[in-house]
């Protein structure tokens, strides 16, 4: 009862605060413009001559690398810098409610931005006959990937009261997790590392799971992977905040 209500109240406040400052609009515009530019001019969406959203989804992990840490960096760092964390945690609110509330708000916000790319889907459907299942699973994969990045950003935001540090740290960690399972990197690693190690590192990577979704496959193993990344990172956030909330 209290749990649902508090989580909802915190999520609502966080979501509203994105839109009370120009931040949200800047994010939306920049993301959509960059994605449009990369899809149409770099990947040559039209010239390929296929009604297929692969060139569009290809860019998501790379754009998220900047977008998501930027959306996540203020979540805790700003609370700590402004001291509002003290007001927050002296309300009858538990740490879990606060973490989940903020996480859901930011994830929903990212979901909204991803949703706003729908004109490209309309374009593809208008021009040809794309595989609708693959589009839906592609979007689901993109949303899950954003959630995984976000959980990393949340953890780094809890580390520090400086948003820039949080941003840089989370870009680094996300980049590592992104490259860990990316074929060009794994094929390079194979030359000097034992195969089991390459596979172990690759198993932690985002890419194999993301690409499976692009192919239209929604595997419970991929879902479990994303969920466990998020739970692990949010639990880390919990531990960090519990120990450092007043520092």
């Amino acid at each position, binding site marked *: 009862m209290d749990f649902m209500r508090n989580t909802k109240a*915190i999520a609502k406040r966080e979501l509203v605060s994105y839109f*009370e*400052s120009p931040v949200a609009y800047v994010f939306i515009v920049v993301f959509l413009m960059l994605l449009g530019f990369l899809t149409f001019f770099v990947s040559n969406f039209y010239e390929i001559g296929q009604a297929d959203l692969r060139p569009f989804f290809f860019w998501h992990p790379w754009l998220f690398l900047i977008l998501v840490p930027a959306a996540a960096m203020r979540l805790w760092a700003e609370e700590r810098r402004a001291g*509002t964390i*003290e*007001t927050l945690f*002296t309300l*009858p609110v538990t740490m879990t409610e606060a973490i989940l509330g903020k996480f859901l708000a930011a994830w929903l916000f990212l979901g909204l931005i991803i949703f706003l790319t729908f004109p490209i889907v309309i374009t593809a459907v208008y021009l040809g006959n794309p595989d609708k299942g693959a589009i839906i699973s592609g979007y689901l994969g993109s949303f899950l990937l954003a959630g995984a990045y976000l959980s990393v950003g949340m953890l780094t935001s809890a580390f520090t009261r400086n948003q820039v540090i949080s941003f840089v740290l989370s870009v680094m960690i996300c980049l590592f997790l992104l490259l860990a399972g990316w074929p060009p990197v794994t094929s390079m690693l194979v030359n000097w590392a034992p195969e089991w190690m390459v596979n172990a590192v690759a198993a932690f990577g985002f890419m194999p799971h993301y690409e499976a979704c692009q192919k239209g496959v929604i595997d419970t193993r991929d879902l479990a992977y994303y969920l466990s990344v998020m739970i692990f990172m949010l639990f880390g956030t919990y531990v960090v905040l519990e120990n450092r*909330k*007043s520092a």
Partner: protein
Amino acid sequence: MLAVKNLQKAFGPLLAVRGVSFNAEQGEVVGFLGPNGAGKTTTMRMITGFLPPTAGTAMIAGHDISEDGREAKKNIGYLPENAPVYGDMTVTNYLAFIAEIRGFTGSTRNKKVDETIEKCRLTKVRHQAIGTLSKGFRQRVCFAQALLHDPPVLIMDEPTDGLDPNQKHLVRTMIREMSARKTIVVSTHILEEVEAVCTRAIIICNGAIIANGTPAELKARSRLHGSVEVTSKTLNDGMLSKLKSLPNAAEALVEENKVTLVPRDSEKLFQEIFSLVKSSPDWPVTGLRTIEGKLDDVFRELTGGR
């Protein structure tokens, strides 16, 4: 209503709070005094559940803050130091958020928000972003946040810090208005504030309580308590030596045209001086007054030099 039991807090090897205990009942306004760094804020943060204590606990309306934090926190309104509130939210939206967390929904929520805005005199700025407000208004928004659910226990960390004299007066008036129905703990290092609003003062130094009593009791601990101050147009040595030789005068402190006589027995000393002045019509005495002693002096005597 509020029972603080042997609270201790260690930050690494540093023991910031070393065993603070006190009780406060409804109707009491407890002034929490101490030099900077004495452990006031740390103690308050433990009472309000922001920091976990290293040892000891606090009971708020029968709920243990360490074991049943949620129920305990429901009974507390807390105004942290420097009034931290979300700068990008408007006053109304912020208070609506607090109301939701405090369990008010729908029209009760809106009613609570309106009432609190009214009570804290925020009507003028209710649609402004908090970050654009002056310090005094920000403080009042944070005050409003603490009062919204009408808590039985109210804890305020330096509520008048950085406010102008009018705003200070307003905050004190509000504290006094509420004091009958609540248990209030106010930390401050402004001693006039303690005399203006507090029914009890606790002095804390180096993380431990070194004095706990009514402002009058504490003042009585002053060296100058019960001293008699004689003001005269001119003071000559004859007058001084006669005053000093009174049987109940322990010590005389002379400054310009005033002499302060520290007593052995205050009432008798006053009588002696009074009759001495009466029997010396040629003395140009213009004033006689018994000094209650100043909290400032007590504060400095108890905490100074450490």
